[in-house]
């Protein structure tokens, strides 16, 4: 599912340097993403309290000067835990989405160019894999192998390879039907050349947008698994695990429950906003 079709024309306060138009909504999205990326990299340097240390006398403490986002079920500083949690959520998702999209796109292009039985077998198999609901797949694998960060990364990428494959294959099949591919074929070019030089440059834009959407899916699935206690295991905690361990604070309306959720939402919504408002090259040819 590509997330196009959103009309955010209201935000036409735009930068037009370099012949690109980038609207304000997209820029806000990009800056939030960059913020979280920086947090993920430099978290140990900026956290106000050590993550494992009980610093508040109260548990499920409210927001205060000392504890900006309150404290958790043991009285640990929530802000520090969320900043550290960014490492797991962003890091694992990024690794998984990279593996998923890379494999999916490469397989998709090969299937499109090669066609024939290879295409049929690959498509049928990956479609079947796709008809296992993602959370279920996660549950089954965790039940079988247990949860560790490498297992999580691999599982998440396997779950999203079929989608990436399908998307890239559909694009590549369209490009493959173009006459310039036929021209290259009867010039005597190899399959590798066709994929690398003729097809890839034409699908790289949509593929990157798809990578963003898949990143969102992966963040959500990882958070969901962690929330169920099947994702990142203690003592480490990603944002989903933070919600799980503090869910007892829900009846008190403790900030510890909602704050990690807001962190997830801020990241995923920003990615969606950025994708819907990517910089557009200005193509103004007055005909």
């Amino acid at each position: 599912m590509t997330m196009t079709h959103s009309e955010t024309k209201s935000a036409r306060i735009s930068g037009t340097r370099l012949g690109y138009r980038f609207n304000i909504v997209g820029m806000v999205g990009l800056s939030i993403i960059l913020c979280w990326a920086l947090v993920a990299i430099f978290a140990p340097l900026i956290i106000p309290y050590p993550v494992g240390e009980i610093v508040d006398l109260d548990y499920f403490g409210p927001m205060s000067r000392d504890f900006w986002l309150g404290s958790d079920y043991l009285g640990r500083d929530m802000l520090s835990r969320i900043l550290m949690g960014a490492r797991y959520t962003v890091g694992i998702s990024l690794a998984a989405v990279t593996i998923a999209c890379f494999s999916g796109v490469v397989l998709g292009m090969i299937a499109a160019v090669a066609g024939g039985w290879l295409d049929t077998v690959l498509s049928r198999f990956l479609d079947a894999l796709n008809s296992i609901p993602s959370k279920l797949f996660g549950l089954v694998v965790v039940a079988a192998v247990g949860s560790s960060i490498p297992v999580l990364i691999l599982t998440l990428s396997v779950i999203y390879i079929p989608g990436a494959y399908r998307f890239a294959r559909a694009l590549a099949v369209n490009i493959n039907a173009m006459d310039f591919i036929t021209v290259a074929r009867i010039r005597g070019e190899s399959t590798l050349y066709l994929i690398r030089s003729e097809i890839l440059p034409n699908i790289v834009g949509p593929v990157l947008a798809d990578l963003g959407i898949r990143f969102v899916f992966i963040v959500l699935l990882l958070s969901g698994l962690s929330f169920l206690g099947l994702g990142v295991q203690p003592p480490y905690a990603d944002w989903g695990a933070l919600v799980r361990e503090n869910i007892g604070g829900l009846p008190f309306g403790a900030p510890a429950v909602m704050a990690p959720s807001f962190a997830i939402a801020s990241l995923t919504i920003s990615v969606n906003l950025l994708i819907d408002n990517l910089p557009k090259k200005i193509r103004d040819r007055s005909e």
Partner: protein
Amino acid sequence: MVNLVGIRDLKVEATTDSGRRVEIINGVSFDIAEGEIVALIGESGSGKTTIALTLMGHARPGCRISGGSVSVAGKDMVTLSEKQRARVRGTEVTYVPQSAAAAFNPAATIMDQVIEITRIHQLMSSDEARAKAVDLFRALSLPEPETIGSRYPHQVSGGQLQRLSAAMALIGDPKLVIFDEPTTALDVTTQIEVLRAFKSVMKAGGIAGVYVSHDLAVVAQIADRIVVLRGGEMQETGTTQEILNGAKHPYTRELLAAFEPKPRGAADTADTVPAPLLTIEDLVAGYGPRQADGLPLVRAVEHVTLKVEKGRNLGIIGESGCGKSTLARAIAGILPAAVGKVVFDGKELGPSARERSREQLREMQIVFQYADTALNPAKSVEDILARPLAFYHGMNAKARSARIDELLDMVRLPRNLRHRRPTELSGGQKQRVNFARALAAEPKLILCDEITSALDAVVATAVIDLLKELQRELGLSYIFISHDLSVVEAICDEIVVMYGGRKVEEITPAKVKTPQHPYSQLLFSSVPKLDPAWLDGLEQDPELVRAYCRR
């Protein structure tokens, strides 16, 4: 005569990607009298359809009527409210679209759509409307007028749909009908029947019309007056006779000049001993799984034999579905022939491109119809041209760069174009780059598959002239595949006529002027001429028409 339509100083603006507004119609004014048919003529992007749609108060998404007035039967379509406009549409002004196939709702029967106007505007009872529709079907000489309405759009042919869409437009007894390139998508032999049907019902009802087209010869048959447009501005207007015989504006003259027959001067090599460059023997090609006899299920080309001599050109002509493009693909090895031999320069080639040597591939190049899809949009002109140079000739970067300049000179493109992407070029420029890429291989034979069909007439003429020049300079041979007889006549020494996958006749225009085979005669006589009396005077054997036209 009273004027039915008066367009005054019409301006339409469009919003571009970056939100900038540009005027695409700039101050156009003309009138249409009751019962008069006015043609709007111009190349793509001239604004002819945009103007025609303003007569219904309609502007396509992204466009807006920004000034002037469009008066139809005393109402200004620009200032009417959307509700009032809806009342006029279908009753006073109606529309016949370019592609009837796309304009019919696939989910409803033809009859329901033809009489929909009478339902919307409550013009008559449903039974009356059906009876009237059947009368119209008959008047438009549609087959099985009683029952054709109960079919779905995908169950009838393109030519029939086009006439059915005219019935749809005429059901509400309009004062004005807009025809938007209604025959462009049709084959010439089909076009005649459709044009005749349009002309007779318009005459019979005394209905005024606007006929949008890029084809002067078609327009000459049906229009009383012609308005010549270019870039959203009017160039010239006058009666059909005035425009055809005494055009004043240089652009109109250019359009007319594109029609002048330019038969190929007697082939330079006529008296030398002909040496065959390419011979095709008994070639069969098609699609679908192979049958027991080793032939494909659907055979698009059946047992075709032909020959191309060095330095001479062969034209292959026929209507859509005759197998001419499949033949080209079989020759090039894109679609391997099931049976038959392709002998090129004395050696037999493998049926598939994969079985041919790099040198063999280099010597025979193919140029496709749509430069838009034949050029990789992600690459610059430079990169597109450099690849065959590196691939076939192993040139280094410096040699490539020098050669690219030469190639651009050859196809008459400015050298600084090399850094641009295909999307930044015009249609004619793209086709030249497309051709330059074939030249880069330094071939002996170039297969040209409908290379001028997507171009405007003036641009196409220039491309043909270029091809002729290059042939003189480089000693190439062309196989020229087209549905357009005038193009083929302009450049080819031999013409092969194809029908239903078979070669029906081979003609050498330098020796024989008129074709012998009945289908060739039908095809040749169906090409519209600039003479306004051509259609009325044209007599075709109805038996022949029935035998060869899939209307």
